[in-house]
């Protein structure tokens, strides 16, 4: 049975309304302050460390993103940790709050399809995160100009722009997850708790669990242990398991893009290094190729999770 009319009717109206709600909410203000203050602290450390060691570096601007100065992790690592929090904060009550405020049936009685409501909410939250991240990105480049005094080259800008795009998709995964949970759970508090639980598990616990699991699946060959080497089978398993976490995918993609000397993200065999000029940066295109699978993983995760919430929302009863 085909339904008549466009599923996107009213999409822009929902998008604009949700966007203005997000931008004017105190929730986003708190989240932005949190990210801004931690990110600025990391940047400050990075800048002061860069000013002391003025070695010749063709990618000085990118160093701002990746240098970590104890006790603070790098700017990218902080974003990898905090972007999910922002996405969850914007998405955990997207659908269930409409039910709880009893606005759902009134809105759906207007001449629009449910598609427009869900899609509008998703895009508005993603746009909010996109705006925040873009502002942050411009801030980093601006600070880099002021404090390092070296104008960034075209490739540096290109690489950091890729960072921005991948970061938005990384936010998309978490936003889809939060949206899915807000569709499944009628209570916003439950949805938020479950989302935060998954976030903590994947960012904090999983990096500790994955090696243990890898050793259980592919025990280390004692001959490698005697030589003081890592067993490649165990290492591969560990990496595959770690990649189940979007956090790890984001980290790997960023490593490839922001550290141009990265040649591979997995274990390397000696014969693969034959002929390589160690320490020489890879061209932009090659770095993108290395980061491409991870980026596709993030995009696919976003789409799959969104599709799940889409199906659930279409089948959901309007009545609370």
């Amino acid at each position, binding site marked *: *049975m*085909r*339904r*008549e*009319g466009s599923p996107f*009717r*009213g999409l822009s*109206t*929902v998008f604009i*309304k949700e966007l203005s*709600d997000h931008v004017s909410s105190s929730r986003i203000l708190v989240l932005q302050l949190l990210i801004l203050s931690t990110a600025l602290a990391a940047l400050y450390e990075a800048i002061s460390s860069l000013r002391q060691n003025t070695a010749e570096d063709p990618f000085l601007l990118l160093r701002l993103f990746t240098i970590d100065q104890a006790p603070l992790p790098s700017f990218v690592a902080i974003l990898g940790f905090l972007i999910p929090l922002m996405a969850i904060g914007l998405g955990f009550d997207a659908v269930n709050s409409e039910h709880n*405020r*009893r*606005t759902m*049936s*009134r*809105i*759906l*009685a*207007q*001449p*629009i*399809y449910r598609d427009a409501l869900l899609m509008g909410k998703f895009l508005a939250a993603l746009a909010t995160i996109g705006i925040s991240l873009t502002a942050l990105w411009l801030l980093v480049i601006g600070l880099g100009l002021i404090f390092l005094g070296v104008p960034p080259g075209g490739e540096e800008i290109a690489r950091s722009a890729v960072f921005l795009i991948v970061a938005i998709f990384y936010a998309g995964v978490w936003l889809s997850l939060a949206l899915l949970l807000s569709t499944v759970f009628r209570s916003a508090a439950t949805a938020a708790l479950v989302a935060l639980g998954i976030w903590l598990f994947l960012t904090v616990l999983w990096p500790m669990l994955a090696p243990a699991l890898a050793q259980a699946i592919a025990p280390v060959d004692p001959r490698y242990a005697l030589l003081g080497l890592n067993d490649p089978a165990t290492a591969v398993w560990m990496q595959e398991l770690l990649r189940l976490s979007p956090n790890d995918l984001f980290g790997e993609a960023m490593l490839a893009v922001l550290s141009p000397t990265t040649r591979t993200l997995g274990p390397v065999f000696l014969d693969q290094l034959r002929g390589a000029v160690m320490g020489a940066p890879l061209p932009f295109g090659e770095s993108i190729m290395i980061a491409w699978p991870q980026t596709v993983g993030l995009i696919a995760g976003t789409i799959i999770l969104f599709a799940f919430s889409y199906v659930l929302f279409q089948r959901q*009863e*309007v*009545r609370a």
Partner: protein
Amino acid sequence: MSEQQTEANSGLHDPVIRARGLTRRYGKSIAVDSIDFGIARSEVFGLLGPNGAGKTTTILMMLGLTEISSGEVSVLGFNPAREPLKVKQRVGYLPDAVGFYDQLTAVENLAYTAKLMGLARAERAARIEAALARVGLAEVAEKRVATFSRGMRQRLGLAEIIMKRAEIAILDEPTSGLDPQATQEFLGLIGELKAEGVTVLLSSHMLDQVQRVCDRVALFRNGRIVLMGTVPELAVKVLGAGFVVEVEAEGPGIARRLAMIPGVTQVETLAADRYRMTAERDVRPDAARAVVAGDGALRRLSVDEPSLEAIYARYFQDQPAGGVRHAA
């Protein structure tokens, strides 16, 4: 053929809503069980029945907001399952305990739905202002909805329907939780809508209100429509007679004279000078004439109009509910 029969059954020409064999199943339980009805243009139609009898499910099916398991319904000639946008463009819906975005003002809330309806900017402002004035919310138009009382929210919901210029207004329990004065005002607004030619579907369990505003009612029970018609029609069906007239008079042979009035089915003698007549129509003028003609002294003549309350109570008392079901 069947189309003509249904129209003949409901006694309607050109119904704006027509349902045939409309059914909604949730797994094994049946929320709405093969109901048929037709609603005429600018009629006020009441949906009555206990909670979970299938009223809201029926409404949601008419709006295409829940799936139809079998049967069909046409609203203004459109099929809500296939053409929900056309139906929703023309039908206004005020849900049970309607909600608004608390952080927005009354105008902003209406502007959002007006945009969803696809109204142009200039048209929007004019319609919103007019609608808010109609329901008496013009003074609080710029106040945030968070400060609104229950009655104000309901009126704002009605303003949305007025702004939409809906041909059909579906109101689900619009007066529950309102104070008597707010209820009164709200019923007045429903009357105005009817006068403008809007068809109103009113779901409620406030029987006296339904009786006051509805032309016809349908009584729902366990997902079926068990009774449908005007209140006097139902009274005849359920109570056996439409009117109960009490006469207080003194004089010889009054009981006999009253019993001879055409249309009177029964006369009970309550006390020496008090009689209760049951009749198919309002027989008060005839009763007065009969008493006076027999040289009696007429002291009091009162009529109990058939109340929906009595019909409802009698119906459910005669046929005890077989297991209460709750709507999902």
